[in-house]
Structures are given as C-alpha cells and as structure tokens.
C-alpha cells in the first residue's frame, strides 16, 4: 500500500475544500436552512404530523440525505474530472499508485467533505426542529455508506464526463427528481398503490427511508432492505470502477 500517496491525494483534495470554504460549506448550509425555515417553521406548523412526527422533524433526515447525495456526487466527480480537464492527471497515472489507492484518496476526501456538511446541517436542524435519534449506530452506518457510495458514483461520473456539461448532467437532471420523489418530503404511504410501486424503483427511497428510520423508528421500507440496497449500490459502483481501471476507460488511451 502506498499510504503516502493516499495521504497526498486526500490532503490535496481537502485543501481544495478549504480554499473554497464559502462555496463548499457555507452555501449548502444556507440553502438547507432555508428549507427548515420554510417547511419547518413557516408552512410546517400548518402541516399535519406524519406518523406522529412533526413535519419539520420528518423532513430533516431527507434533507440531510439530499445534501449528502448532491455534495458527494459533486465532490467525487469534480475531484477526478478537474485533473483530467487541466491535464495534471498525467502525474497520478505515472505515479506508483494502484487503482484502490487513487480511489481511497479521492473518494475518501469527497465522502469526508460530504459528511462534514451533512453533520453541520444536522446540527443546524436542531435550532429549528426537535430531533431525536433512536438508532444512532444505524444512523452513522447509513450516513457513512451513503456518503461513500455516492462519492464513488460521482467519481465514476467524473471519469466518464468529457466536458463540463456531462459533468453536471447527472447531479442537475437525475439527482433532484430522484431525491424529491424518493420520499424526502412525504411518506410514500400517502401515494396511490401504483405510485407506491413506482417509488420502489427509486434507489433514493431506500436511503431516505432507512435513514429516517434510524431517527424516528418509522420507515416506508424495512430498514434491513434499505441497508441491503445501499450496500448493493456500493458494490455495483466498485465493480464498475474496477472495470474502468482495468481497461483504462477514458483515462488511458
């Protein structure tokens, strides 16, 4: 294992986060706080409780997931896309580092950054709504697994993307509908049976449901199935990345 290389990549990526602190950390926190003000305090007080939980508290896990997904995909994809774009990737490709070490460095940093922001949002939420966490260990597990899986997913997008438009395609066009329709703001039990069935095709549903269960003990889907789905997603990403590095897809000609 080339630990020095992992450390170098990880610290390099984290340094980039520090340089862009305002954009990286402050802006997602502000935008999420706006959700809490609007849905938690302003409108939330007029919305019925969902499964015995106040609406503001109900949406908190979903909001954290929404930000975590977006941040992890964004960080993961940009981290590898940028060296590809400016050409500095030559150095990583010609260094004595294995695929696993490159991934640990980049994805580790992307996930760390995502989790820091997620934690800040969770802390912010306590100012607006009453939060309780019934299964803290499971909460951390869901949190970490999601951060790592989606950072991996982002990393793949970064390798695949040939230009900035493609880089933004998935985060802008695919992620918002999936998160908004994945039960972040409602319980899918409120939907008709048909749309409930359709929702089960949405991977984000499992994340939000499992994560919310770790907070309030209420879930749309069995938490074990949720955990299984997150793990499955993680494995799929790893398999695809293994293939990417083996063939040099879009990295080496």
């Amino acid at each position: 294992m080339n630990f020095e290389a992992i450390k170098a990549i990880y610290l390099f990526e984290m340094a980039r986060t520090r340089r862009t602190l305002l954009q990286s950390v402050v802006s997602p926190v502000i935008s999420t706080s706006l959700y809490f003000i609007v849905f938690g305090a302003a409108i939330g007080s007029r919305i019925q409780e969902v499964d015995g939980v106040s609406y503001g508290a109900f949406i908190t896990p979903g909001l954290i997931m929404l930000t975590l997904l977006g941040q992890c995909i964004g960080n993961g994809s940009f981290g590898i896309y940028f060296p590809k774009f400016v050409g500095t990737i030559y150095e990583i490709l010609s260094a004595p580092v294995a695929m696993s070490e490159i991934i640990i460095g980049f994805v580790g940093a992307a996930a760390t950054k995502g989790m820091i922001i997620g934690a800040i949002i969770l802390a912010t939420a306590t100012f607006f709504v009453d939060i309780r966490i019934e299964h803290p260990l499971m909460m951390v597990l869901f949190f970490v697994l999601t951060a790592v899986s989606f950072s991996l997913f982002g990393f793949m997008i970064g390798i695949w993307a040939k230009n900035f438009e493609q880089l933004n395609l998935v985060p802008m066009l695919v992620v918002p509908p999936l998160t908004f329709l994945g039960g972040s703001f409602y319980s899918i039990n409120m939907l008709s049976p048909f749309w409930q069935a359709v929702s089960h095709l949405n991977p984000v549903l499992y994340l939000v449901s499992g994560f919310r269960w770790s907070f309030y003990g209420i879930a749309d889907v069995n938490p074990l199935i949720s955990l299984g789905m997150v793990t499955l997603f993680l494995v799929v990403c790893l398999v695809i990345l293994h293939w990417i590095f083996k063939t040099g897809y879009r990295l080496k000609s």
Partner: protein
Amino acid sequence: MTPIVSIRNLTKTYSNGFQALKGVSLDIEEGEILALLGPNGAGKTTMISIICGIVNPSGGDVTVGGYDVIRDFRETRTLIGLVPQELTTDQFETVFNTVSFSRGLHGKKANPAYVEKILRDLSLWEKRDSMLRELSGGMKRRVLIAKALSHEPRVLFLDEPTAGVDVTLRKDMWQVVERLRESGVTIILTTHYIEEAEEIADRVGVINGGRLLLVEEKAALMKKLGRKQLILDLTEPLVALPAGLAIRGLSIGAEGNTLVYDFDAEHEHEQATIATLLRQLAAENIHFKDLSTRQSSLEDIFVQLVGEDK
C-alpha cells in the same frame, strides 16, 4: 552493464487506428543522456507515455531497472521522473505544496529540506509561496522539473523541455541537466532544437513514423553521416560539368552558379582531390570568385534521414 531502460518491439495503435509505434527496440544505458529527435507525430511522446504508464502499449515489453513497467509498475514508476510537454499545473496550488504533493504521490515521506534543495537548484525558492497561476511559462516549466525530481528518480524523461523557453532559461536548464547527469541520473529528452541534442547528448536516436531509424553515439553519428562540402561561387554559370571534370562527389548547384564538392574530411585521398579539382578548374578555364566549406550538422543528418524515410 545491463541497460536501465530496455524496450523490445514496442507497438502502439490508438483506438482511431493510428499506428504511433511500429515495433521500437531500444536500450538506454545508466547515466547517459539520450536525445530523441523526430518530427511532430513521430511517436516520441507515445513511447515516453508508455514507459511512464500513461498510455497502454499494444504490444512489446518495456523494463526499467530490470522491472516490467506493467507488472511491476510500483518499482518502475518509483525510478522514473517525468516532465511532460504540456505546461499542466494546478493553478491554485503553491510551488512548495505542489512539489511536496508529487513527492507524496510517489510514496516518499515528506522531506521539506530536500524539496527546498530542489527549489533552490532551480531558482524557484523565492517563488515557493506563489500560486502556480502567477508564474510565467518558463517558471512553470521549472516547477514541472522540480515535481519530476521530488521523489529522487534515477531516470528522468524530459519531453521537449525547452519548447517556448527563452535562451537564458534554456541555458540554466541545461546546467541543471548536467548536474543531474553528474549525480548519475539517466536522462532521456526529446527536442526540436537539434543544436541542443548536439551540445548535450551522449547518444542520439532518430524516430520517424513510429520507427526508430537509428541510435548512435553522437560523435560516431556525426563522423559516419556527417559530410563536408566545398562550395565554389563561379564567375560565369555552367550548364553542364565539362568532361575533364569527372570527379566523384562533384555537382552543379544554384542553377549553374556554384560547384559543390562533397567529400569525407577524414579521408586522405579525398582531401588530395581538392588540389586536383582546383588545378583542373584552372585547366578548364573555369573561374570562381569565392569559396567556402561547410560541415554538415546534426540537423542536416536528421533532415536527410527523415527525408529518406519518406
């Protein structure tokens, strides 16, 4: 002595069908400076990229320090430093950090004293806290060299290191290369400035169209392929060589205004012929107003080789 870099039948065909390398074999000895010459698209960068692990080969083998570049990539890449052709840098990093990053990437523990030494050697120490985007092109080139040296490589690839670099900086750079060679580092450089290769290299390789046309000691190459020419500017143009002037290597140039005699300066007989030629010219009543000699440079040899290859 076993070569530090050994290339056997290396081929590369890109996915668009372009055949960049058509079976190159080359041994590079430890401690030498090898200059690779070749026109654009000859395959120089492709060859370097394969050795460094940036491009996958289509066929053939490469070993560095006895290790296979694909199977034992950790060993070979630890031995190699690469200065790429393009000025690719992380614009928002500082000089010191980017060089330290390169060292870490190559698995070496942080060593600020060593990084300081490199930066001082390359006259970059004053700029250590500057962001890369604030540097001039020449300074960026130095940073790339510093990055390539950060992990104490034994083999250094310089891909057109002096392209777009002014004369002073180029001289500085060659001093650095000279110092590296003295410390035992093997240097492989590609260049368009043939006079540079002539000045600095021990051996010269010429690549064209994905093939290595030759690799030779510079001195031997100049001796073998270098010619001398005697040029006579005539007072009156000649239409054809008179029958009495049948000397091998003599030809008419510049639309009959000059006589050109190609000869081998090492060859005593051919030297003697010059006197004969001048006597015969007087006999034929051919007068000249000026005479000059020139020795073919590496550039002439290169142009000739690449020209013949077409």
